């Protein structure tokens, strides 16, 4: 608590600086969102947690005093819970874990690997990158102990996403669910709206909102994300493809067994367009259809809290973007419902993402850490350490350890065997498509009104010949 008091004192001091800027009121700690219990770092302290040390005996007795470098794109403040969960591990084994996080990760990792300077372990945010790294020949296959854990605690789908050509290389780490539509339960209750279960109900609700609220738009969206501008639009398309055409077609689409501009995909994108390109439906709080292209994804849902928008499709991790003090709960200020099913044939499905633990070395201490990260024990510790905003596809993860209702809802979907999970398609396609052409063309589709067929033809043309 001394930290907080010091923080407050500093806040007052710095607030005084603000005061000097203009003779004015300065924000109280509450107004600035300094109050305890909000924001990041609200997990429980797990650094002293007891774990079963005997499980590391299988990695030999030369672990003490060794070091393992973990290289990742997960940076402050999300890195602290990771570091905390390493402490019980270090306590047991004597292995020091050097956590090295940078947002330049995705550009830097290939440079390091190609220069012979690969880290021991990297957290890869997409299977596409795993495949890329495996093709360099530097990635070590997952050790037997890890493979067993993955077999036991992860679904077959997740196991496949960590494998290349049938060999398991990387155990899944964290997960998120992308098929969510955010809304305001309190606003819905006031207006008497029900959460839609099907696509038709969703459109009917949208029309209802248009009718009832001439001053606002039902949907808000934003695909701006700096260099990655366009990715939220790919998520929209993936949601419709999976929920309408089902996992089989979805997989064929990723594997390029059907072309990117298959007539069914054209129809799916047109369906996305029936919302995103409908001037009556978008873009609440931000302007016309084109404004979707320049609105950043971080801002895109905020109008819901300001009464300028009703619906916003975005992943479970969007919970971190709500302004301080927004209550995320089924009866709170904001919450999310699962992306509705389109037709009957597709079954219950969900699109999501996650990270994978790839190792570039096979030293015992590296394998011990890989093993630790694939245990349910670690997943539960990590969930406790993080508080709201983290979950894993590990079936041993206890829902009680998740403090945020949206994390619980997401984890329920991941653990529900009747729900088919599929990884974000653009993360599985070649980078020239999934991290370039698709972003570029969908952005033009929104910003410049480029027609659907041309858009998909252009993406198809970018598919690398092989």
């Amino acid at each position, binding site marked *: 608590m001394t930290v907080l008091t010091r923080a407050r004192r500093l806040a007052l001091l710095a607030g005084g600086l603000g005061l000097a800027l203009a003779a004015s009121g300065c924000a109280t700690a509450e107004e600035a969102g300094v109050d305890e219990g909000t924001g990041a770092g609200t997990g429980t302290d797990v650094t002293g947690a007891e774990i079963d040390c005997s499980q590391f005996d299988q990695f030999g007795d030369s672990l003490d005093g060794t070091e393992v470098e973990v290289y990742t794109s997960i940076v402050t403040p999300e890195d602290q819970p990771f570091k905390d969960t390493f402490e019980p591990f270090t306590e047991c084994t004597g292995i020091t874990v050097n956590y090295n996080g940078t947002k330049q990760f995705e550009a830097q990792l290939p440079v390091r690997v190609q220069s012979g300077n690969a880290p021991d372990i990297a957290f890869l945010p997409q299977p596409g990158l795993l495949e890329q790294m495996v093709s360099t020949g530097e990635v070590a296959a997952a050790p037997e102990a890890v493979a067993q854990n993955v077999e036991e605690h992860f679904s077959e789908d997740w196991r496949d996403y960590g494998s290349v050509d049938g060999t398991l290389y990387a155990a899944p780490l964290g997960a998120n669910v992308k098929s969510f539509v955010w809304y305001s339960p309190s606003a819905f209750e006031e207006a008497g709206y029900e959460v839609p279960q099907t696509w038709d109900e969703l459109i009917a609700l949208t029309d209802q909102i248009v009718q009832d609220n001439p001053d606002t738009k039902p949907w808000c969206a934003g695909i701006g994300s700096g260099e990655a501008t366009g990715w939220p639009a790919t998520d929209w398309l993936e949601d419709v493809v999976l929920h309408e055409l089902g996992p089989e077609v979805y997989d064929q689409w990723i594997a390029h067994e059907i072309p990117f501009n298959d007539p069914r995909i054209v129809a799916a994108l047109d369906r996305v367009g029936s919302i995103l390109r409908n001037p009556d439906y978008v873009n609440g709080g931000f302007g016309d259809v084109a404004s979707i292209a*320049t609105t950043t994804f971080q801002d895109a849902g905020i109008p819901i809290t300001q009464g300028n928008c009703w619906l916003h499709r975005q992943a479970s991790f969007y919970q971190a973007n709500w302004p301080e003090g927004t209550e995320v709960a089924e009866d709170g200020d904001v919450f999310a419902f699962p992306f509705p099913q389109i037709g009957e044939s597709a079954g219950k499905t969900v699109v999501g993402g996650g990270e994978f633990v790839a190792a570039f070395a096979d030293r015992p201490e590296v394998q011990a850490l890989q093993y630790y990260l694939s245990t349910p024990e670690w997943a539960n510790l990590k969930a406790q350490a993080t508080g709201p905003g983290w979950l894993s596809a590990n079936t041993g993860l206890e829902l009680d350890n998740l403090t945020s209702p949206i994390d619980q809802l997401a984890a329920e979907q991941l653990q529900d065997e009747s729900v088919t999970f599929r990884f974000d398609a653009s993360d599985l396609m070649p980078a020239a498509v999934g991290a370039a052409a698709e972003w570029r063309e969908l952005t033009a589709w929104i910003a410049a009104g480029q027609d659907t067929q041309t858009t998909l033809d252009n993406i198809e043309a970018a598919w690398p010949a092989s």
Partner: protein
Amino acid sequence: MDWLLDADSTAHKLALMVVAVLAFVVVMGVILFAVDKPKRVPTWLVVAGFVGPALLLVTIGLVYPALNTLWLSLKSPDGSSFVGLDNYQQVFTSDNLQLVLRNTVLWVVLVPLISTAFGLIYAYLVDRTRFESLAKALIFLPMAISGVAAGLIWRFVYEYRPDQPGIEQIGLLNQLLVWLGLEPYQFLLHQPWNTFFLIVVMIWINAGFAMTVLSASIKAISDDIVEAARLDGASSFQMFRSVTVPSIRPALVVVLTTVAISTLKVFDIVYVMTGGQFGTSVVASEFYSQSFRQFNQGLGAALAVLLFVLVIPIIVYNVRQMRLAEEVR
């Protein structure tokens, strides 16, 4: 040896820094002492002492990687097989290229000219005034800002919000438009104007560079020339046109060249603000995207070679200027 390579405590790092600087001083001292014997040492050895260390370093650090890039540009995306000129063919047949080249030319022409003009006028106007130091710091400020922060700053200038009740503008320019009774405008969206709005950011950053170098040059103009012109009754504008500008002409060429080359290489402004979308990409941003996002090393290398080619006119211009200067001397 370990002590030299693995510094992790603050004191250790600082000590290592001092050791490095001292080691450098000693090495250079020895080299210079060795060549400082006029008459007895042949000229080539003196030249080697002066130029050698720098040449050695740029050969390792830049020439070798540049040749390597040339070689990679002839190979497949992952560098495994030789594909001849395929990458170049791909570059030159892409529909995108014309646009990318047009944008690049716009950047390379406008940024140096305008930022140098602003830097020069400003350096001249504030020269020898009471507030010179502060005034110059204000223009210099953008240089001190990292790329990420610059993107953020300009977001609060260009950001668009619709003009409707209950919604406030966040971008300064759109607020000005609204105050003037006009519609807010999507500055970063509409081609080709969005490229100009991005160029403004680069000008904003580079004017400080131009101002600082040109100011140092202006101060190096001999007092006597200035005083003579003044005694002849030259007005401020005449002074500027017929004394200041001609006297610092070499510096102007240097500034234009430097800014032009750094503009050729710039990709982070485009990358941070539009991601190269909406028809704003330039050769450097395409290069970065191919090499580090799409993992197509071959194509990325070919684009880098295109950058080398684009700089040739600038080099030719400089060589001609140098020849002219030699003649004057």
